């Protein structure tokens, strides 16, 4: 087999391999959801961020419009500060509220934004004032038990 | 200021662990001559070639090429030395994945920046010198043993080396190939002015083409001189080797116990 023949076949092989990698990246993974375009940062403070992780999605009406960029503890107010990157071109009113929700019953947690009615929009670097913390299962259970015990005709002590 | 001797071996001792292969050997190889190194199997002939080529380092003594010592640790100078030396391995050692042409062209392509047309001409000239110009496109697998060795010879002389070393060039060849090989060695040596070292145990051919002969046995030189001088030697080891006596200083029997005892006979 001539030199040119070998080089062509190897080129074909490398091409196939790269195509496979691209296929895996696009069709099989979430590369396609990376937006080409700018993002702007918004912060929010939560009493309890629960199981929220960096790179979790930020959704509004169920549509992903951003990602969690960073999570840190505010040492003054002892609240969790979450920094989100939202897509450029998707603006939210200044009285938007942020909740930490769970996808499915036991799935990963994400931030849901519910827009308010203000006529002014959040600018890059602004903070969302109204937040609702994550539901922590232990608190829920103890609250349920507490309620049950407080009912008339509850458990005899 | 050219040294008369291309290669000089000064009181060289070499061995592996307990086994001593060469002890206190001194040899000189003058330029332009064909020198034969002869001896029985395992006497250290091939080791000598490896010492000269820098593959092995002597425990004691100095091996010099063109006045400067051969230092295997210095890769630069070692490779520079090897570019002036051509070696013919016992079975050719051709590169089996390349054609005959590419095999001979290999040293030219690796060590020179000559353009391809020039390399082509040189390769064909070398192949012509060994009589195999028509076999240029064959692969080593298609060649007979004798032909393979001739191609290897063409490859060894591709860079017109000053020293050509032959490791058992006559082993296993039919009478015609033997004649061809001996003829080539002598003619090439005279035509190019190179120095040839022939390691062999083929007495007849070596005596025909050599200017000087060394006979080695058990790591020592037991005889040296022109072929005529060695032929007339009365050293028993030399005589046994040249005459092909089955028994002599080199014993026929491998060391063993009493024959009778082995057979269970009571003496």
């Amino acid at each position, binding site marked *: 087999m001539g030199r040119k023949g070998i080089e062509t076949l*190897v080129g*074909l*092989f490398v091409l196939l*391999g790269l195509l*496979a990698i691209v296929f895996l990246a696009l069709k099989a993974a979430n590369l396609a959801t990376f937006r080409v375009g700018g993002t702007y940062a918004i912060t929010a403070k939560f009493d309890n961020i629960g199981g929220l992780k*960096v790179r979790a999605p930020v959704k509004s009406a169920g549509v992903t419009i951003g990602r969690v960029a960073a999570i840190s503890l505010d040492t003054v107010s002892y609240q969790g500060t979450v920094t989100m990157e939202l897509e450029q071109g998707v603006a939210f009113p200044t009285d938007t509220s942020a909740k930490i929700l769970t996808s499915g019953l036991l799935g990963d947690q994400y931030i849901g934004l519910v827009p308010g009615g203000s006529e002014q929009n959040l600018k890059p670097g602004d903070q969302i004032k109204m937040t609702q913390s994550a539901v922590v299962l232990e608190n829920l259970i103890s609250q349920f038990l507490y309620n049950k015990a407080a009912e008339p005709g509850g458990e005899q002590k | 200021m050219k040294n008369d001797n291309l290669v000089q071996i000064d009181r060289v001792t070499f061995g592996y662990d307990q086994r001593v292969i060469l002890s206190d050997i001194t040899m000189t190889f003058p330029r332009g001559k064909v020198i034969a190194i002869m001896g029985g199997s395992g006497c250290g002939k091939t080791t000598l070639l490896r010492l000269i080529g820098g593959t092995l380092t002597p425990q004691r003594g100095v091996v010099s090429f063109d006045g400067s010592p051969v230092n295997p640790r210095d890769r630069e100078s*070692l490779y520079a030395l090897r570019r002036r030396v051509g070696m013919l391995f016992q079975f050719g050692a051709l590169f089996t994945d390349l054609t005959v042409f590419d095999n001979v062209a290999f040293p030219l392509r*690796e060590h020179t920046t000559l353009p391809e047309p020039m390399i082509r001409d040189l390769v064909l000239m070398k192949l012509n010198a060994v009589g195999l110009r028509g076999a240029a496109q064959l692969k080593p697998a298609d060649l007979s043993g004798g032909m393979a060795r001739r191609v290897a010879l063409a490859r060894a002389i591709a860079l017109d080396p000053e020293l050509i070393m032959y490791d058992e060039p006559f082993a296993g060849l039919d009478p015609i190939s033997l004649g061809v090989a001996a003829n080539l060695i002598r003619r090439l040596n005279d035509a190019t002015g190179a120095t040839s070292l022939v390691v062999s145990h083929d007495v007849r051919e070596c005596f025909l083409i050599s200017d000087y002969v060394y006979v080695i046995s058990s790591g020592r030189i037991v005889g040296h001189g022109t072929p005529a001088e060695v032929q007339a030697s009365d050293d028993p080891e030399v005589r046994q080797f040249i005459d092909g006596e089955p028994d002599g200083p080199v014993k026929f029997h491998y060391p063993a116990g009493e024959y009778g005892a082995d057979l269970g006979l009571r003496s």
Partner: protein
Amino acid sequence: MWALGLLRGLGHSAFFLVDLLRSLPWALRRLFLTIAQIHSIGNYSLVIIAASGLAVGFVLALQGYYTLSRYGAAESLGLLVALSLVRELGPVVTGLLFAGRAGTSLTAEIGLMKAGEQLAAMEMMAVDPKERVLAPRFLAGIIAMPLLAALFSAVGILGGYVVGVLMIGIDPGAFWSQMQNGVDVWDDVGNGIVKSVVFGIACTFVALYQGYEAQATPEGVAQATTRTVVISSLAVLGLDFVLTALMFSAPR
């Protein structure tokens, strides 16, 4: 004393690896040699890699479906197939197949070249066989492995699609969307590629070393090829454990 010999062998092979890495730039210089080696290592492995990938994809889908449907999670089949392949099966199975197919052929080739004194002849012609013979093969192995592993995973996912969607009847939309939501490019696909590069280095190194150090007899070459397969396979499995622990156990 047997342990001493083992240690010495380990040290010897470490020096060999360093020499190999140092002669890599030469492989780039003699580009055509490397390309020819990619051809013999990569192209000739395509059939077995593609066939194995397809088979593994089929089986993953079948087995996965039976397990997932018990928990009513059959729609996550695409995710299961993709993650299993991209993170583990792609790099590891390709590594094992590579060790068997390309590794043994490299070892045998180098061993026979050594037996035929070709390497010694090259040395005597002032050409370093490590640069001209070994380095191109080393580079070719490192390049070919991740490509083969990606092909294995891609073909496997397609195989899973064929069985899951076309044969079993899972909704294609769910198949792909669950997969796309759950498989991360950098953490999953990227780490899988890193794994296959590491396996490529290990398997090619072992194959070349065994060939270079083989005894120049038929038995010697046979033993060397056996050692190549055994050591490469163990290395792939061992490295897989270490890499998986490093990459995937830390919570994101």
